[in-house]
């Protein structure tokens, strides 16, 4: 391993530990009260190094949100398998909920919403990361499913919003107001009920 590689490696490690420390401090203190100096200390780097990785506190927070919602999310990988449409939707739903709950995306979202009047830029960026990118992936997937004759031809922007809206309505909306809200034991059944409604309308 050359010096170049070694340096890159160190830099990546630092990047990851800043993300991790930032996440913990933000979840504990909220956005406004979180201190960059403290994050740097917890990550064992200087504030100068922190700012080399993330130009601002906002940028760091956006990176943390991105990290939380993209850990297990590559739904396009699943499309090629032999899963039925119903199973594919179930996998997508479970993956999405795992991100929201296990990776504490709900808690991060709550912080941003609570502070959106004070910090509109951060809120706009978060919304873009949370919904824009995800939705685009789902629309792309649905477009391919229409092409392959698995889904009826439809306005895929609407159908993507519909399925994610229904899932949010049942699981994420209540969690926004209740930090102790956990996924109920019958989550899979509820997901299946939503998927049945969706399939009745969209399955080819």
């Amino acid at each position, binding site marked *: 391993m050359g010096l170049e590689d070694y340096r890159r490696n160190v830099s990546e490690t630092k990047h990851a530990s800043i993300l991790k420390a930032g996440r913990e401090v933000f979840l504990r203190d909220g956005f406004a009260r979180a201190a960059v100096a403290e994050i740097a200390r917890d990550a064992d780097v200087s504030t100068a190094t922190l700012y080399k990785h993330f130009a601002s506190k906002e940028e760091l927070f956006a990176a943390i949100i991105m990290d939380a919602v993209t850990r297990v999310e590559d739904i396009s990988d699943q499309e090629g398998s032999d899963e039925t449409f119903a199973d594919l939707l179930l996998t997508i739903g479970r993956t999405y909920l795992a991100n929201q709950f296990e990776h504490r995306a709900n808690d991060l979202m709550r912080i941003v*919403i609570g502070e959106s009047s004070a910090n509109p830029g951060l809120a706009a960026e978060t919304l873009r990361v949370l919904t824009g990118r995800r939705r685009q992936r789902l629309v792309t997937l649905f477009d391919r499913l229409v092409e392959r004759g698995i889904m009826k031809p439809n306005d895929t922007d609407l159908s993507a919003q519909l399925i994610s809206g229904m899932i949010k309505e049942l699981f994420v909306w209540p969690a926004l*107001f209740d930090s102790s809200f956990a996924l109920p034991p019958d989550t899979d059944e509820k997901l299946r009920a939503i998927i049945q409604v969706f399939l009745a309308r969209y399955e080819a």
Partner: protein
Amino acid sequence: MGLENYRRSVSEAKHASILKAGRDVFLRDGYSRAAVSDIARDANVSTATLYKHFRSKEELFDAVLQEAYEADESDSIAEGADTEDLIVAYCMRVLQSQYERRVHALLRIIIAEVPKAPQRARHLYENFVTPRHVASAQALERLVALGKLKPHDTYYGACFLGGVMKEYLVWPALFDASMTLPDNAEAIVRQAVRAYLELYGA
């Protein structure tokens, strides 16, 4: 008008101005930072009078939410010929009322309270937010009873309509305090209602 009536009307006027001042201060400062003394001053009453009307800041905030969520007469689904138009009109009334009464800003205040006062936030959610979903399901149930919709689990029916409307018109408003009801709101709602009726229309 007797003295009794006069007193009552003064008291009602004070009640209303405390509510209005409370709403403005909560919207400006959030819940924790809102000062009861500010609210009393803006309402032009003493803090003693304020506490005669509302025993605590909590109770005042409850009343502000109550007012914001209060259903007006037109809140039910009216009878009429075209089911699609009926449901679209119902959804639009709910949305317009939410935007006019700044319900999203009040929701943001509740959400901000969750980490500090979880029980309080849950109380607000259960008493003000959940009943809205129940009311929508009941409105759909009435359309089923009128034979305008196929019998179906209206809890999931309300989820279908509520979810898609929130996705386009409520979630973004939670993140963007300056968002107003977009011009194409009715077109979005109509599209969602059509998809819904393809499933459940009688």
